[in-house]
């Protein structure tokens, strides 16, 4: 398979550009940001549509409540702040005013995971997927590159209901099609294979692509799925792939507890119990460092995915 890198871009720019596109086409879209316009790349929307943009200052709880209120009157609010402040800091506001109240709010979260880098563990949330997927009715999406994040941003405006959209800070390979139609809840098979299924999400999708090269040299034919929607889970696609390969490795920039791997494990335990390994952070906080250093130190790189694949195949 050919995964051509078009350029290196941050997924947060995909969000910012997607939001700007939405602003031009849909007058019901409104933006809210808690003092992180530059970091969230919301400047183009804020400048072009000042009447539909609300700077809340550093008051994330208030921002979530305001977003809930803006839906009453038919607007589609997109909130922007770091993933940590989009979830853990405002969990009860999201739970009561948005999720339980069934409000059509799009919670857009940047700087997720350890690739946030030098700021360290205070800002590197690795628990947000778990927090959000546990909320009834919440859709959870983790796109893998710039193009997919832009497409996902546009797609979630068409979905009625609360959505958590998770993306990141560093520039990463941009390789998915610029003209893709993003389908919520529809897993994408990037490469078919026979020996193992690798299910990756977010930044780990490219790491898994890198792992394919290592595995090919070892004679392992891996199937790779880009699972951009954690919830609702594309159970059909996962089960079909694993039924064929008979083992699975998941890969994510998140705690093992509560993440993508746990969702897959639950599905397989109920319907197709087969050997599984998880590439994820194992009950640790992050720390300062460059994104690449941290991904290696926390076992989230291509080498670790390839190791996990060999381990799970040995267990078949």
């Amino acid at each position, binding site marked *: 398979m050919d995964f051509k890198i078009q350029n290196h871009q941050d997924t947060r720019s995909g969000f910012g550009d997607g939001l700007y596109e939405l602003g031009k086409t849909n007058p019901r879209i409104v933006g809210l940001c808690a003092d992180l316009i530059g970091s969230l790349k919301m400047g183009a929307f804020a400048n072009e549509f000042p009447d539909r943009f609300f700077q809340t*200052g550093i008051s994330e709880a*208030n921002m979530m*409540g305001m977003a809930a209120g803006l839906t*009453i*009157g038919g607007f589609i609010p997109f909130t922007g702040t770091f993933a940590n402040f989009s979830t853990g800091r405002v969990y009860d506001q999201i739970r*009561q*005013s948005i999720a339980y*109240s069934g409000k059509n709010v799009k919670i857009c979260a940047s700087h997720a995971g350890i690739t946030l880098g030098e700021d360290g563990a205070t800002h590197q949330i690795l628990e947000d997927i778990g927090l959000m997927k546990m909320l009834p009715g919440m859709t959870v999406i983790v796109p893998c590159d710039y193009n997919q994040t832009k497409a996902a941003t546009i797609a979630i405006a068409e979905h009625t209901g609360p959505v958590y959209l998770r993306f990141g800070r560093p520039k990463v390979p941009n390789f998915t099609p610029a003209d893709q139609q993003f389908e919520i809840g529809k897993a994408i098979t990037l490469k078919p294979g026979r020996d193992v299924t690798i299910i990756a999400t977010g930044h780990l999708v490219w790491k898994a692509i890198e792992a394919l090269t290592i595995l090919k040299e070892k004679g392992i034919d891996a199937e790779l799925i880009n699972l951009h929607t954690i919830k609702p889970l594309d159970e059909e696609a996962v089960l079909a792939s694993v039924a064929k390969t008979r083992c699975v490795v998941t890969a994510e920039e998140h705690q093992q507890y509560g993440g993508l791997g746990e969702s897959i494990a639950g599905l397989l335990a109920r319907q197709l119990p087969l050997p599984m390994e998880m590439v994820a952070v194992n009950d640790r906080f992050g720390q300062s460092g460059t994104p690449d250093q941290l991904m290696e130190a926390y076992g989230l790189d291509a080498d670790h995915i390839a190791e996990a694949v060999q381990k799970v195949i040995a267990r078949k």
Partner: protein
Amino acid sequence: MSDITKFQRIATQIRRDIVRMVHACQSGHPGGSLGCADLFTALYFSELNHRPDHFTMDGEGEDLFFLSNGHISPVFYSALARSGYFPVSELASFRKIHSRLQGHPATLEELPGVRVASGSLGQGLSVAIGAALAKRLNNDPSLVFVLMGDGEQQEGQIWEAALHAGSRKIDNLIAIIDYNGQQIDGAVDDVMPLGDLKGKYESFGWKVIPINGNDMQQLIKELKMARQGANKGVPQLLLMKTEMGQGVDFMMGSHKWHGIPPNDEQLADALSQLEETLGDY
């Protein structure tokens, strides 16, 4: 019969509904509900421009009301039912399984009149600001009202929202605080004093109007004044002094009846003090 007398009689029936509802399920919050019965009557039977028989979530062209201190759901539900949002008979299902009248207000069961879940305190003012901004964007001149508790003012999110409304001049918003001085653990002044609440809001850019929330004539007048004071560049706060338990002598003047129901004997005592003016549900 004068309008004021008519409204007072409605408030009395709402008070009967409140004590009967919490008695029937042996749970709920009668104290604050009784204290706010006059306000809810003034709003739902006089001052709100609303369409009880045609509820829509967006409430386009209607005034919106949000209850932030959701635990006083009995008075909210009674006012909604009595003003025509749903059958008064449904009040009998309060806090019971498969009811639309959840312990705290919710939207999941689609009870007409409720636009956001509340109960976890401190969130309603933010929601009201968002709804007020939506009114502006839609060129809808209607107003947004929100009721909060005084104990609720201890929540940090309230002050994020108060700052936002003041700094951004959200002037189609009328907030009301039930200033009864009581919360679950005791007097607000003992649990965590609020200090100069009027001065605090004023320093955040609000116009604050102290009123007596158990004086129907004053309530109607001040709500009309507040409507006239809207769209003048400042958010308004009615700092509404009430008596917790108002209308039932043994429930008044103490935090004790914040969140406990009357027994059979106490119910009979309470109902003997509250005339059945509109017919019980």
